[in-house]
């Protein structure tokens, strides 16, 4: 029993969390001057959904808070109260309390009851401070601190005047007429109802008028049998029960189940009116289908699938390799089958990887709140602009990128954007902008955090670096100077604030991003702003690699880092201090990294003009990797070397080749760095 319930709890927690998140983003997006009725409705519905399911599951504290929240929201959306900035603050605070309660229930901890009481009081005060009431919930404010007992929410009261209901049918036109007849008959048994408008080609909504005394919740219940539940609008006849449709998926999972079949069968004798065909239904709401037909799956299951596919890929290439020696004529069918297997495996791999892909909006959505709260605290005006929220990346990365990005944004708010007075003095608009951007570039995903603040201060950073005893000189390029801020304990902020300035953070940001196989770049211009660019690989599990041979060893070079490969002629090789260290390619001198030397591999080619040069690029620097030969190009499954062994310099991970042997994947960034550091020694 308890196990069963806890399974449902999990769904409830997840859904409630989603509702809270969507409520928060809606609140933040609300224009206080002219609130959008649809947004208010959506906020109300989110609160309502939480209340409903919290009540069902017996989380009374959650239900209490949402109840007060809901009553207040209800009055606002019905026009009984004008929304004010302090209300938004109170709602956000209520959202936080709800999140805390939710977390407390989920993790078995306890939330602070004082906080709950405080927020109830605050919300009730807002309700009380309001002018005349439309809803029945209003007369209660004085005792609201003990809010649990507030009776009937407004929605359950009996409407004093005629109701008008509008909705979009959730069925084919064939079934519609019969269903509507049934619905009217059913309604008529309670209250007289009349059809005032049928659906037409340009408006898919049906409208009914129901006599005074009807209970909106009961009417809604009936309508839900035939109509899309998110399309139902019930209001007093004079109220502008808006035409605008919203399918924000407030009812989450349950929309997907079409309630129609039984009714459709009942009404099947009705002939299809030609006017009521599919196009209208399609013209109705924003497409919500994608959200409706999703299922929740444990991430572990997906990971297991990814691992299995990895093994399958290895087995497949093992088979392909064994078969490659067989006579293609005699074993034609085997070869054809293997080719088919390869295609299927690749498709399957892509499909499974795409399951793990999530839009980055999952991370971005939390930043409006971060920006708002922090800007308010620091007395700054900041607008957050996000683009590319739909960019997808691996779920594992999504989770891990969130903290570093939050830190970069906090940093931009605290150090980047100036306070309004300073901005005006500088001739900038008082409101600063933080631009958050995500997009794909090549095999990686790029996330930019840009601000139009004061930019980094070269002199300050250099002075600070000297103070900390870091090896710096005045000739360093700007790029090198900016990178200093990622040094541990580095902070140029004059005063330590609650937000930043303690020097912890930027180095952690860089380390976390590097651990994900990504890197950070900084561009900055004094007085114009700063842009931090984070580059991450698309996925953690598989990469496209080029296998290269050195002696008897095979190594994998990540394809994304390879610019070209070429065979050098003696004329291209330049010596520095008698050592062949550079090659001259297309007007550029590239340092040479000889893998046999670096890894002390015997039996390889030694002369630079005998082997192959693979030109690599990492962190904006280039180097030529000297290997014996190129073997081939294929996707490889990344296996950690560190889980059972340790970090090896120059190696990022391992993989398993088609023959079952292990091959090591080169850490290109480290190799290029080695080439750079090897050069001055030789010079």
């Amino acid at each position, binding site marked *: 029993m308890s196990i069963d319930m806890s399974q449902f709890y999990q769904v409830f927690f997840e859904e409630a969390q989603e509702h809270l998140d969507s409520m928060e983003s809606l609140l933040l997006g609300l224009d206080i001057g002219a609130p959008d009725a649809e947004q208010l409705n959506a906020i109300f519905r989110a609160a309502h959904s939480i209340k409903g399911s919290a009540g069902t599951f017996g989380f009374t504290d959650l239900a209490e808070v949402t109840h007060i929240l809901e009553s207040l929201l209800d009055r606002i959306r019905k026009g009984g109260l004008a929304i004010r900035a302090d209300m938004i603050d109170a709602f956000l605070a209520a959202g936080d309390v709800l999140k805390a309660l939710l977390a407390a229930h989920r993790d078995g901890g306890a939330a602070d009851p004082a906080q709950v009481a405080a927020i109830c009081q605050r919300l009730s005060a807002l309700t009380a401070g309001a002018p005349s009431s439309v809803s029945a919930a209003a007369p209660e404010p004085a005792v609201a601190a003990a809010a649990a007992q507030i009776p009937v929410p407004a929605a359950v009261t009996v409407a004093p005047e005629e109701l008008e209901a509008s909705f979009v049918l959730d069925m084919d036109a064939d079934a519609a007429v019969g269903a509507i007849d049934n619905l009217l008959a059913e309604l008529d048994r309670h209250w007289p109802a009349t059809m005032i408008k049928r659906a037409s080609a340009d408006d898919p909504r049906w409208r009914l008028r129901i006599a005074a005394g009807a209970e909106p919740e009961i009417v809604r219940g009936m309508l839900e049998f035939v109509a899309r539940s998110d399309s139902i609008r019930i209001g007093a006849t004079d109220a502008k029960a808006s035409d605008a449709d919203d399918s924000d998926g407030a009812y989450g999972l349950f929309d997907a189940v079409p309630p129609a079949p039984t009714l459709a069968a009942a009404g099947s004798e009705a002939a299809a009116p030609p006017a009521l065909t599919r196009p209208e239904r399609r013209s109705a709401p924003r497409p919500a289908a994608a959200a409706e037909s999703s299922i929740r799956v444990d991430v572990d299951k997906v990971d297991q699938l990814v691992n299995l596919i*990895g093994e399958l890929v290895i087995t497949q290439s093992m088979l392909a390799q064994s078969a490659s020696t067989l006579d293609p004529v005699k074993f034609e069918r085997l070869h054809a089958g293997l080719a088919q297997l390869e295609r299927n495996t690749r498709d399957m791999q892509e499909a499974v990887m795409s399951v793990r892909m999530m839009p980055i909006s999952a991370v971005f959505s939390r930043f409006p709140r971060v920006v708002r709260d922090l800007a308010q605290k620091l007395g700054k005006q900041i607008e957050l602009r996000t683009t590319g929220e739909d960019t997808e990346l691996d779920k594992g990365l999504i989770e891990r990128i969130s903290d570093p990005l939050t830190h970069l944004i906090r940093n931009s708010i605290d150090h980047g954007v100036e306070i309004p007075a300073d901005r005006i003095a500088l001739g900038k608009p008082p409101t600063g902008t933080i631009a958050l951007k995500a997009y794909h570039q090549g095999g990686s995903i790029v996330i930019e955090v840009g601000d139009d603040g004061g930019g980094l201060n070269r002199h300050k950073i250099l002075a600070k670096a000297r103070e900390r005893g870091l090896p710096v000189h005045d000739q360093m390029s700007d790029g090198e100077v900016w990178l200093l801020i990622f040094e541990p304990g580095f902070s140029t902020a004059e005063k330590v604030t609650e937000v930043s300035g303690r020097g912890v953070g930027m180095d952690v940001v860089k380390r976390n991003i590097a651990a994900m196989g990504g890197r950070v770049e900084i561009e900055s211009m004094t007085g114009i702003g700063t842009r931090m660019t984070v580059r991450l690989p698309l996925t953690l599990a598989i990469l496209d690699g080029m296998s290269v041979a050195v002696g008897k060893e095979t190594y994998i070079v990540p394809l994304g880092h390879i610019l070209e490969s070429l065979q050098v002629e003696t004329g291209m090789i330049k010596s520095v201090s008698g050592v062949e260290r550079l090659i001259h390619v297309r007007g550029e001198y590239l340092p040479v990294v000889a893998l046999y030397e670096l*890894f*002390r591999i015997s039996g390889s080619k030694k002369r630079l003009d005998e082997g192959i040069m693979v030109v690599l690029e990492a962190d904006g620097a280039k180097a030529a990797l000297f290997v014996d030969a190129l073997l081939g190009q294929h996707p490889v499954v990344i*296996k950690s*070397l560190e889980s*059972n062994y*340790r970090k090896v310099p120059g190696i990022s991970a391992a993989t398993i080749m088609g023959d079952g042997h*292990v*091959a*090591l994947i080169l850490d290109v960034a480290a190799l290029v760095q080695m080439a750079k550091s090897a050069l001055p020694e030789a010079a």
Partner: protein
Amino acid sequence: MMVQQGAARGHDAGDEGGDTAEYLTFTLGPEEYAIDILKVQEIRGYELPTTIANAPVFLKGVINLRGTIAPIVDLRIKFNIGEAEYTPFTVVIILNIGPRVVGIVVDSVSDVVMLNAQQIRPAPEFAATVDTRYINGLCTVGERMLIVVDIERLMLSPEMALVDAAHQAQ
């Protein structure tokens, strides 16, 4: 010579607290060692590992253990004892050291013995190949003297260089 894995796995009571426990014994040159069998995952033949650049000589490299990358340490090279040659009879003991999977190459695997806690006597300061810090004690079984090794501590020790320095610091 070869121990069946089934026999090894059959036992799981009497871990630390029990009076008797099962130990796997192997030889390194003339010395015979015993390790807790619960740390042993399997015993397999030696296959050529992929070498790791600039690693210590006793680290033979890494192998593909059904999709897991496991390092292989040749204890004969590490302790400079026995013949470090690789024949079809060379065996690798795959160990589970906490969450890690590590293989060790030894001269030969002897058998599985039941040892009573009282049987294991503290080791005097003596010149064993393995540092006494990693030795739990000595034990006599018939004519043989077994050196009972805390294989987990040995494998995680800095001198094996199997884990990152950051982990060793603690």
